[in-house]
């Protein structure tokens, strides 16, 4: 040792104290190497003065150049009231807002992503854009400027209703040639299709008309209006054939026909086929076929 110097202040009253250890073990005070001054404190240790050691982080702040490790259940706390707390409890990790405000995560225009350690996306919040939710790195739901896009099935596990806040409630299929299918599940059974609205506008069920037509069988034969009817053939006086646009599944359907404005008519349906059926308007009183206006409705498969 080249020199040891302990010096008091000539005009002050403070006392430089080196406290003895409370055991018989020796204690060593190590002074900083090179230039510098040993930090000093006042009597209660509340005021630290002197030149900081470059290997220590001052209370006033500084830059860490290495990792900071907190043991399990040791909090990193932020805020005067320790409002924000971050910890790991040995099993799970927590970011907790314990104060009265909100927990806000901000970016300055960048996206906010939540990923697993493989880089698989779970949440992608695009600044000024969509918020996307993924399942196993496959996007399933995304907000849009007009609502929400869903990629996959929607299962309502509770609740009975889908509400419309105002205006019409549109259910729209935007893919060409695809249908809208309604199903219910009977007691003890499985989901069963009850009604199908086809891409060309037909309603297929056991309780909706598969076809109907109103045509004028007099003078210039003309179809006034129709559904799932491609044409009507005028076969002869009082004899017509209704041709379906889309054939019936089988010939066991019910074709209901009514002649209009003809008294004592004896009409009947005949030659029922999947693609058409024939109509005969007969008057038994004089055994004659008559032209007239006719309405038909068809139910069946």
């Amino acid at each position: 040792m080249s020199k040891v110097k302990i010096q008091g202040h000539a005009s002050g009253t403070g006392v430089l104290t080196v406290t003895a250890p409370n055991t018989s073990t020796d204690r060593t005070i190590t002074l900083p190497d090179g230039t510098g001054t040993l930090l000093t404190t006042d009597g209660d240790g509340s005021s630290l003065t002197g030149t900081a050691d470059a290997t220590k982080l001052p209370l006033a702040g500084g830059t860490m150049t290495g990792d900071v490790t907190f043991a399990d259940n040791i909090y990193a706390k932020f805020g005067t009231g320790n409002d924000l707390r971050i910890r790991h409890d040995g099993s799970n990790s927590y970011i907790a807002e314990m104060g009265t405000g909100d927990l806000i995560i901000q970016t300055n225009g960048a996206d906010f992503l939540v990923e697993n350690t493989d880089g698989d996306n779970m949440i992608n919040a695009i600044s000024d854009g969509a918020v996307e939710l993924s399942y196993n790195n496959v996007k399933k739901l995304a907000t849009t400027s007009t609502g929400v896009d869903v990629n996959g099935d929607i299962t309502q596990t509770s609740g009975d209703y889908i509400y419309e806040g105002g205006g019409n409630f549109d259910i729209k299929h935007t893919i060409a040639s695809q249908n809208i299918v309604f199903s219910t599940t009977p007691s003890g059974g499985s989901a069963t299709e009850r009604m199908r609205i086809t891409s060309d506008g037909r309603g297929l069920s056991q309780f909706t008309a598969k076809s109907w037509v109103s045509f004028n069988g007099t003078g210039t034969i003309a179809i006034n209006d129709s559904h799932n009817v491609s044409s009507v053939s005028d076969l002869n006086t009082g004899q017509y054939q209704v041709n379906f646009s889309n054939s019936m599944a089988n010939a066991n359907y019910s074709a209901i026909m009514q002649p209009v404005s003809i008294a004592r008519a004896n009409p009947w349906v005949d030659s029922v086929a999947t693609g058409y059926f024939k109509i005969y308007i007969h008057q038994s009183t004089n055994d004659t076929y008559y032209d007239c206006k006719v309405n038909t409705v068809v139910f069946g498969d």
Partner: protein
Amino acid sequence: MKIIYNTTDGTLAQLVPALKFLATLEGTDEEKLIHIANKDLPTGTPYEITDEDLSDRTFRNAWEYVAGADEKTSEDLSLDDQLKYNHITQEEYDADAG
């Protein structure tokens, strides 16, 4: 326009298209009627497309079909149309075709 053809009992028949069905078809009016003829008439049926006035139904039972210069013959629809109009799958069509 309408389609006139001969029924199996030798009487002239006229086939009147439904406007709603016509609206689903593409092409000229004649192409649309040819499509309907291929769909609603038995394959191989001679027919003509006409806009002749047939409103006077006097002696309707005596009307006869006489082949004209523009006579056509109904043909099979395309496979896609057959599948569409008859609600069958390709597999069912293949099985039916043997």
